[in-house]
């Protein structure tokens, strides 16, 4: 059974991480100076996960609402 974006958002950060690990698929990851960004596909939407690049601690995990931001991540990778 799929979860909607709003249902996903009701969960704690730790639970979101578990949901993504159990149900999601990693599409891309990019490293910046202080952060690592991963894009996952879960259910019928995509989420952006931001990790502390130093200790790999998950800081934030939210569905992607901003297309320009997604494009930025993709182009960042191209630059690399």
């Amino acid at each position, binding site marked *: *059974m799929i*979860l909607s974006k709003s*249902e996903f958002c*009701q*969960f*704690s950060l*730790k*639970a979101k991480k*578990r*949901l993504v690990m*159990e*149900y999601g698929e990693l599409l891309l990851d990019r490293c910046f100076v202080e952060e690592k960004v991963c894009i996952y596909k879960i259910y019928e939407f995509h989420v952006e996960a931001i990790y502390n690049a130093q200790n790999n601690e998950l800081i934030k995990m939210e569905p992607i609402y901003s297309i320009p931001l997604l494009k930025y991540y993709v182009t960042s990778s191209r630059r690399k």
Partner: protein
Amino acid sequence: MAKNSSFIDTIDQIITDGVKKGILHLNNEDEFLEGNLIKLKGKDVVNFGSCSYLGLEFDRRLKDGAIDAIEKYGTQFSESRAYVSIKLYKDLEEHFEKIFKAHVLISPTTTLGHIAAIPVLVSQNDAVIIDHQAHNSIQTACNLLKPKGIHVELVRHNRLDLLEEKIKELKNKHEKIWYMADGIYSMYGDACPVKEIYALMDKYKELNLYVDDAHGMSCFGINGSGYVMSFGALHPRAVLAVSLAKAFATGGAVLVFPDKELARKVRTCGGPLITSGPMQPSALGAALASAKIHLSDEIYELQNTLQDNIQFARLMIKKYGLPIISASAAPVFFIGVSLPKLGYNMVHRMLNEGYYLNLGIFPAVPMKNTGIRFTITCLHTFSQIEKMIERMAHHLTIALNEEEISMNQIYSAFKLPIPSDVQIEEQVVSILNAGSLVIEKHKTIHAIEQNEWDNLLGANGSFDWNGLQFLERSFTNNKIAEENWEFDYLMVRDENNKIILATFLTTAIWKDDMLSHSSISAQVEEQRINDPYFLTSKVVSIGSLLTEGEHLFLDKNSAHWKSALQILFKYISQLQEKYEANNIMIRDFISEDPEIDSYFIDNGYFKINMPNSYVVDDMNWKSTDEYLQRLSSNGRYDVKRYVLRDEDKFEVKIITDPSEKDLEMYYNMYLNVKNNSLTLNTFNLPFKAFKNMISLKQWDITTLSLKTEFDIKNLNKPLAVMFCYVACNNYVPMILGLDYSYHKEYRVYKQAMYSAIKRAKNLNCTKMYMGFAADSEKKMFGAKPRATYGYMQTKENYNLEVLGSYNAFQNKQSTKTKNDIISI
């Protein structure tokens, strides 16, 4: 109905049925356990029945704690704590004092904790009110108070309005009032309204709280101190008991007290704390390790993980449309399935799918409120939870179809609002599934052809067509509620118009203690002086309160008999809703039939033993001597000694047209007998019924008077009157009235019975139905006992529980009466 030895038999029957079906009393087959898989019947299944909510049972630190304690102190320290306690006890109690920030006592189990604490806490002048869904262990401990004469009663679950009413009623008569409750209720997983109870405690200084938070411990609160303590410090008049055998993962229990003196007193005087064995070193060592986790921030990590899983499970249940019964943050879930047969089916199916779940069944819940109970722990993954719920939803659709139950029935059984899509689906299915059986429903016997009815049921007792006409006239349009019965008739025919099932039903107010021991009824009647409808219930019953015999015609040779019974069950449920009745009774089965037993249990009924009914079926004698030869030697002796010796002193009259005054006298004689016996405790019959008997030729009225020369008290009136129903060669003495003026000199009841037998013979009757009770007298006259039983279903068990709470008083006041004679 009494919660007596047959209640134990009922539990035995239901649990044994579950054992036979392979879902209860299971044993796991693992040589080694780790995680949430267990091996049952050769198969690894995900365990959704564990109460180890935080999954700490496999934590290395707890295992090491247990091993270390064994290494240091051995496998046991076998000494009562009254003498010496192992050092680990002191260490552990210090840790718990930090967790609860209060005074504590450790007990080997929660049950022993209750048994130690409650009799010490509750004094002679106190009163106890138990939430009727409070755990059985609390109720067991409270039963110890009853022989001391301490006032103990039940209150409906979480009904603080009713609790307040009881407080007002009791507070001037008792020093303290103890309310006994659970923090999280073990079956439905709903919670105790702690804030509201504390507010009541602030309002009424007499109110004290004793709460068992077994399922809340560790899962909630600062340092895992439990659900109750998640609302702040323990109320100064509250005592808490928590289990260490659930989320805490070590076994044992803790009692938490608001003051040191109370803790000391229970430690000193609490029975099991003096005489029972202590917790053993391994459990104490593991508990110490678990307590250390509880005192660290790690407990909040675990609590959060559990809450994530609970939240996910709730969301999945909602998405898959399962009928969940309560909504709280607890890790206990209850999916309603209504009838036991669906519960068995579902647990079986889920076991085959690789998921072990509990069956929530009577007596933990009412029969019609059977459900699938499951628990969530930190060890479950989201995908395990989702797959289990997805499979449950998948199988529920199939099982509903197999068991011919609708979702609508489930929602109705639990009084839940029925979703609109479920309602529509129900209608579609009922249209598509309309079978070949023809169902006739009637509100009066006049709508049924007399010969057809009498051929089916007329010879079974006093409910032939005319008898029912009499009942309808007598028990409708009366002023008093209990004298008004609803009448309903059901006939089911096959495609060839052949009757498969026929019966009549009455809906009336019954006394719940009708079949209880008379000493219990005596106590209940005392309460009814101020509250006439105390412990009474509206009952939809096959037959009526005034008839006996096999009221159900069922052609078991028909291939459709089960379908016909299903129609009956559905019809009764509809009547139960329509008349807002609590209980259903399908009664007066004579011969044992295991197939019927099993079918009724699967459909949510439990079997109850009714009193023996007595029948004289050998009327083939021509003289008194011949009759006497048919009796046992004791019977023959008694009849000669108590009846024949005085027979000539009595005059028997057949009454055809009594005056109003005579009828009133007969009615008062009936009341004499009725008020003298509580063996079958019913409401009084209305006078109108007696008036109606006169106008129906089937009623044979006889009186028994002393001849003038022997009536030395110059009473000049009958000593006995009998109203007997004559139909289809049956003679049924139904109502007896007595005047006890000559009770010491003559055995008037025996004379009356004997004259009834002679009268039946004169009328060429071949069978005499002598009713229930007065066993020895009836046997004396050659009546044979017939074991009679019925099947019962209750919407809720509350009244049964309240009645059950009277049992301990059974021998307190014996109220055995002069005669155990009753007019039923």
